[in-house]
């Protein structure tokens, strides 16, 4: 669950200055398409072109939506369905004790587990890397993947762990007190990415 880290409008206590648009709805679609192509290119078997060994696992909530979008795009471009699942990393987070108990999100690992698969872990925004760290721990409980790669729509910097993304939709240099607001039609009614600044809040 990444809402709190991003400091979305719903949970930011302070004032949010009017957001500056980084990606329009059309940009989001284009960016996802490009990422899908990159994934196909790097993941497909060199000889057979098969994607049968790959699986997309999203980190709820918006990482899971992005994984589904990527899965659909990959199916469109390659003609191959790649399984899509989700893994909730909340139970593995290192900051649980810093706030009230968090609600848990859906974990839905494709049947058969993750042994020897190439897992593309998907999240909407990459910042400190702590959520990805927790997700990697959670993944390891579900088997031993051949490899894990990371795909994010936005990399905003400020890493606190040695983690980097394999696929990045957009690199956005940010200040710490800024927020990246990712919206997806499925839950927000509209696609888009914006940058906002909080003042006086804790978000």
């Amino acid at each position: 669950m990444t809402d709190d880290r991003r400091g979305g409008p719903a949970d930011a206590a302070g004032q949010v200055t009017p957001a500056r648009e980084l990606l329009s709805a059309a940009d989001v679609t284009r960016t996802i398409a490009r990422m899908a192509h990159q994934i196909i290119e790097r993941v497909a078997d060199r000889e057979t072109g098969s994607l049968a060994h790959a699986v997309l696992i999203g980190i709820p909530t918006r990482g899971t939506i992005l994984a589904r979008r990527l899965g659909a795009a990959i199916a469109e471009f390659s003609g191959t369905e790649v399984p899509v699942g989700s893994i909730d990393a909340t139970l593995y987070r290192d900051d649980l004790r810093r706030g009230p108990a968090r609600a848990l999100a859906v974990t839905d690992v494709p049947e058969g587990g993750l042994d020897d698969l190439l897992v593309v872990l998907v999240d909407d925004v990459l910042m400190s890397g702590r959520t990805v760290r927790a997700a990697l721990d959670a993944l390891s409980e579900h088997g031993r993947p051949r490899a894990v790669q990371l795909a994010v729509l936005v990399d905003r910097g400020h890493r606190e762990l040695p983690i980097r993304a394999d696929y990045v939709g957009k690199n956005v240099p940010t200040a710490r007190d800024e927020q990246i607001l990712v919206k997806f039609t499925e839950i927000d009614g509209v696609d888009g990415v914006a940058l906002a600044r909080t003042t006086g809040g804790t978000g």
Partner: protein
Amino acid sequence: MKHLLSVTDLDAAEATALLDTADRLKQALLGREVRKLPTLRGRTVITMFYEDSTRTRVSFEIAGKWMSADTINVSARGSSVSKGESLRDTSLTLSSMGADCVVVRHPASGAAHRIAAWTDRDRAVTGIHTSIVNAGDGTHEHPTQALLDAATLRERLGGIAGRRVGIVGDVLHSRVARSNVFLLATLGAEVVLIAPPTLLPVGVEEWPCRVSAELDAELPALDAVMMLRVQAERMHGAFFPSSREYAIRYGLSPERAALLPDHAIVMHPGPMIRGMEIAPSVADAPSSAILGQVRNGVHVRMAVLYHLLAGASS
């Protein structure tokens, strides 16, 4: 949530959040070889049982262990309790040792409330916060049983609101019945208590439920029927003439179970007295949710520990 002492500590949203967490935990562990989550690493959960119990104690213990909490069991026998130590001293001792959570079962109604009051008072001095979970206090409440029953109803019936649940038997002495009546009412179910008048408490008319003495008349309209255990000692208290008459009038025989709608489920908090309140074939039929209740018990208790212990101390 600071303690879980009574189901009335929970409003509908909080109860639903607990049930959702239980579902997610169940999912998170599904099909895994190693059923271990790191979430409560370094947390200490002490179960303190002053009454015999198998399923509840073990269920809490498994719940704690699956979340990596250090789980320690204290039973009334073989502890300082048998030397005459007061409940207050025992609970403050455990709290002072750094227990993050004490799960308590005690024959006195309100025991968990008292322990919470003592440890809260003590906290002002020591700064140690201990969450108290009521695992059954006298004839008062058994909140985690009601939560696991609610989880089972939700799983098997697709929801709780608007469903009609019959609770049959010794309501007077049943903490399970009390917790279920109030929790299920909070979650929007229609509860019917079915018992002879001697086994209904004076004042039951103020509870959020209906009361009936006629099991056969109620069964065809129930979505679930929950059979309460008939405790042996009640048979000598003039509450009903004989166990034979009780079984005839209030036991769930196969013929009676056939009066239930096809989708209805049969529940029992255990331990069951087969042949008394429930026929063996009914307990083992596909409509029986009894083992499902036990399975859900672990996940619900994990959810309770998660909500009490995973976040910052309140």
